[in-house]
Structure formats: C-alpha cells, structure tokens
C-alpha cells in the first residue's frame, strides 16, 4: 500500500496507472493533482455536492456526464466496467479540456484501488 500521497493528492497520471486505464481524450499532460474521488451515477449529486477539482467515477456515459463534470469543474471522469462513451462524447470532452479515462474495473473495484493508494473520499 502506498499511503505517502494522501496529504498532497495523486496525479492523474498515477490514477491511470492504478486503474490500468485508457486515456480516451488523447495526449494530455495529466499532471493535475486529484485531491478527492467521488463515485456516483447521479449527475444531480455531482452538481449539488461535489467540489471542483474532484475526480468522478461513473457508470454513465451520456454527454450530460461531460457537461456536468465541466460545469462542476471536475478534474476528470473515469468510466468504469469498460463501458466507453461514444466518440461524440469524447469529442465534447476534448473541446472543453476534460480528461476522460476508461477502466475495466467495476466502480467498487476502481474506488477500492484508489482508496488503497491513498486517495480519500471528500468527507475525510
């Protein structure tokens, strides 16, 4: 278990490694730091409670996920269980500069791996 990053967060690049994820939005710097992670399929919850700078894990893949993440100022979105969004959704994310990731892990597994690697939830 790597816990040394818990205070300062973890880079998106490290998240990609932990989740064995594909970067859907292409060449990105991925230097931004993730402070907290949230898991939900409810975009209303993102809009109401999630702070900007958080990383979202979700199973939804429609274009409103990108709009919600963009408007909420999220640092990126991870699509779980290998469900990839359409190319229109990916194009929209590129347009607004929102990194998208795809992992074959389930939401539970992806969250567990990130947590074990020192990324806390937002209530901690």
């Amino acid at each position: 278990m790597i816990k040394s990053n818990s205070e300062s967060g973890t880079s998106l690049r490290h998240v990609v490694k932990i989740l064995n994820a594909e970067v859907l939005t292409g060449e990105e710097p991925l230097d931004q730091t993730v402070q907290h992670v949230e898991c939900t399929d409810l975009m209303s919850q993102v809009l109401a409670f999630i702070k900007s700078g958080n990383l979202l894990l979700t199973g939804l893949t429609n274009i409103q996920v990108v709009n919600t993440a963009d408007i909420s100022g999220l640092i990126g979105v991870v699509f779980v269980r290998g469900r990839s969004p359409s190319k229109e959704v990916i194009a929209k994310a590129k347009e607004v500069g929102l990194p998208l990731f795809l992992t074959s892990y389930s939401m539970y597994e992806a969250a567990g791996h990130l947590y074990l690697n020192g990324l806390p939830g937002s209530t901690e």
Partner: protein
Amino acid sequence: MHYPRHEFPIKEMDFVRAGEASLQVKKILREMKAENDLVRRATIACYEAEINAVVYGRDGVMSLEVDDEGIYIYVEDKGDGIPDIEQAMMEGFSTATEEIREMGFGAGMGLPNIMKNADEFTISSAVGEGTRLKIIFRSGWTTEEA
C-alpha cells in the same frame, strides 16, 4: 456601462444539446472576467434550470442580463407548469420519468440546488402555461475588470 442581453433557445427533450445554453452563459461570464466561484455557481444554476426546461418545458428560452449590480438569468418555458411550487422545491420531490433518471437526473435536487447557488431565486408557474425562473447573482460580481 452597457451590457448586451443574450438569449438562448432550449429545445424540448433534446438531450444531445441540453447544456449548450448554460455553457454559453459560462463562456460569456468568463469573458467578462467574473471570478471562478461565481461562474461556477451561475453555471450550475443555469444547467439545473436548463435540464428542467428540456425535460418539462416544451421548449424554452434562457436569457442573460448583466448590469453593474449583478447577473440576471431568466429561464422561461411553455410546459405544463408546476401545480404546487412548495412541493416542487422540496428536495427529493420529482415527477421525472425513468428515461430522465437513467441519464443521471430526476432526483428532485434541481430546484433546491438553484436556490442554494443563487443569491436570489424566484419561481412562478401557471398550470398549462409554463414556468418562469429568475435567478440573480450579486456576491462576487465586480465590474472593475469588465
């Protein structure tokens, strides 16, 4: 200082373009150099209102007005209207269909979230005619940079 008024159409049940009006508002506020937190609050409120108009509104219009005192957003639609506004404002109350819920909305959180983000929020509705929201932002708004 003169500020132009902007209007953005909102199309009924168009879930591909839903959000475009709010993103336009975001862009305009950014160009006016509004501070980040204000842009975020305003855009979230717009987006919640826009999704409502897409779902319930049978076409609508979002308008943006700005003056030295604040930012004024109006969202008007021609939908069925809300019979009981007090009930609609309660968190968790929703009449959304399964289709809307599958998209990640319809949890009865939209109107309360507009209220939470706005500095002033008024809603009026007439059954069979439509709904009108007035959402005002003042705190954090400075025109020094504009």
